[in-house]
């Protein structure tokens, strides 16, 4: 009974935030809605007995990746999204894709409901940190090391991509953007 209430509450919040993210043209409102989606999903992970993944979801997605996105939106001072005027056929493509994916979703829902139930024992938590840590450092050591190297590559790549030879200060960039705003 309580799990049903929690599931519908957080699922409703997640879907509402996702629709809000797609609807808003202002990228900052979209980013705030996406943070709402991430936090609702984190609560759903807790109801799925995955406490470590829930905490890591808030820490990494809501707390680091979206902060980066919000920073970029603020620094670049992005305007609202414009409607698709040159590529109007994309409305039909998007609508068609949405209908097809929704149909697939309902089919999966129906099929899994009707399928015979082979659920494992639901009383133990497999997602606790000890299990995950043991698996990560014994069976999956190579993927973890590869992920480490990949993150190093991403750091070096990001630094090189935005490097300029005469690097202006943060204050100068902000001032230029404010001038652009006030003269427009």
């Amino acid at each position, binding site marked *: 009974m309580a799990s*049903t209430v929690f*599931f*519908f509450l957080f*699922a409703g919040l*997640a*879907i509402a935030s*996702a629709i809000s*993210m*797609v609807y808003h043209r202002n990228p900052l409102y*979209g*980013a705030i809605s*996406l943070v709402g*989606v991430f936090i609702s*999903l984190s609560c*759903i992970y807790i*109801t*799925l*007995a995955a406490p470590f*993944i829930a905490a*890591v*979801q808030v820490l990494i*997605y809501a707390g*680091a*990746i979206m902060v*980066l*996105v919000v920073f*970029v*939106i603020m620094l*670049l001072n992005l305007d609202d999204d414009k*409607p*698709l005027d*040159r590529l109007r056929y*994309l*409305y039909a493509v*998007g609508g068609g*894709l*949405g209908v097809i*994916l*929704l149909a*697939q*979703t309902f089919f*999966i*829902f*129906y099929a*899994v*409901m009707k399928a015979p139930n*082979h*659920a*494992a024992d*639901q009383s*133990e938590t*497999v*997602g606790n940190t000890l299990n995950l840590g043991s698996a*990560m450092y014994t069976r999956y050591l190579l993927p973890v090391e590869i*992920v480490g190297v*990949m993150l190093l590559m*991403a750091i070096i790549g*990001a630094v090189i*991509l*935005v490097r300029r030879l005469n690097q202006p200060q943060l204050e100068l960039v902000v001032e230029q953007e404010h001038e652009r705003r006030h003269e427009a």
Partner: protein
Amino acid sequence: MEPSLASYLGLSGILFTIGAVGVIFKRNAIGMFMCIELMLNAVNLTFVAFSRYYGDVNGQLFVFMVMSVAAAEAAVGLGIIIAFFRNSKSVDVDDASLMRN
């Protein structure tokens, strides 16, 4: 109705659909990036639901890998967007057609 595996998969499918439609409808590069993150999260939800259903920890481990890859992709993707913005002063992907024709 107790939330069974089907409910979680249905929720994941709906979020994936919203993300996919958002990627097509958005002109802003950052908006498209955020819709892609939404799709990745829908897939993470599927993995965690299956991991709970089968009592297998590998699903959650893969979620961890997906999150790391998403973080790396965010860093590099936003770097590309900033570099692109410096040249053309706009992040509109429909206007980014310099190599066309």
